[in-house]
């Protein structure tokens, strides 16, 4: 697969208003961001990561069993 095809597979295009694009261009001047795309990707990842909410990965029974082990190992009094 050529590099162009590879990039096509890995990247896609979204549309944003030109005014916003220009505003971002001004915002990233002198920062480490090399393009509007890299800035938008960064911001979206930051926002989407907020959704990562997990349940407690253990039941009450699990918890009691683990606490017993932790006491036996000296981690809990």
């Amino acid at each position: 697969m050529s590099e162009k095809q590879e990039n096509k597979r890995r990247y896609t295009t979204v549309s944003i208003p030109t005014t916003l694009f220009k505003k971002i261009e001004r915002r990233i001047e002198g920062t480490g961001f090399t393009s509007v795309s890299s800035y938008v990707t960064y911001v979206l990842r930051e926002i989407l990561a907020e959704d990562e909410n997990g349940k407690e990965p253990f039941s009450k029974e699990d918890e009691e069993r683990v606490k017993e082990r932790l006491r036996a190992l000296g981690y809990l009094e």
Partner: protein
Amino acid sequence: MIAPHGGRLVERLDFSERKREEAREMPRKEINIDMARDLGNIGHGVFSPLEGYLTREDFENVLEEGRLSNDLPWTIPVVLDVSREEIDKIIEGDEIALFYRDTPIAILNVEEIYPYDKKKYAESVFRTTSIEHPGVANLMKKEDHLVGGKITLLNDPPTMFPKYKLWPKETRILFKEKGWKTVVGFQTRNAPHVGHEYVQKTALTFVDGLFINPLIGKKKKGDFRDEVIISAYEALFRHYYPKNTATLSILETEMRYAGPREAIFHAIIRKNFGCTHFIVGRDHAGVGKFYGPYDAQEIFYEYPDLKITPLFFRSFFYCRKCGSVVNEKICPHGPEHHVNFSGTRIREMLLRGERPPELMMRPEVADAILQYDNPFVE
């Protein structure tokens, strides 16, 4: 409590005798202790969200983007290499049993067998193709194909330190019981000198708990031996750490020496253990001069979605003028007043059987190390 990476703590365990017997009837692949340990890490969720070895799409995405194919940060390939002879005996869809010394450690569902480019792997993960780099040298010894697929853990891998072996479910319950809402994780492959202690305690000042998590596993020549690291930390904990705010447990996996990428990997692992913060010092997981001293800190700016907060530290040293341990940010005095915690110097003294000065290493820690004839990997 902080969610595991990807939102769910993976648990792929089946410790039933029936399953173990089934494994004995399956095609078998022998594995070494490092591979067995990583199977334990997958099965118990240390490597959440991984449920097995990377399939091709994830593998390629990890190399190119430092992310899984679902865009979740992941920087180190967790893969199983197979030889041509082994490929001839398995097909996609098979189940194979992974054995360590005649014990079935796991069953692997073979989803995909694929070739890979070692040079591209080395460049992406280690930022070099030089075989002087220990991670690259290991990679070049691997077979030319990888097998991807989910695993089921049948037996925990053996450990030399059962007293300090905790899985993420256990550390999460431990932190909850201790009432720690914020926990800082510290990765280490060294016996602690005063500089390490200072970094750890500085970080602890701002959070509820400190989780020291030494890496136990294959290391390079000249690194501290595993049992020495444990003895040294036991001494430090006994004499200098409060029990209610600091704890010690091991992580069993090999060092990859992948510098920046490994720093992200180490942070993800500690997030799975329940840490909210992670200490990243100078040249984290580096080796030789392959990485810049703060490359492993800079890479975190590429991962705004990591969710564990990195705490960046510069080098600490003792300043005779300040009369305390300081760093360049807080000390106005010149280098003529400074005593650096030089790992090389400490190592040389220990090899000669000498206690390093108290300014550099706690005497109790030095004594714990000196009880070993050779504290270093040969």
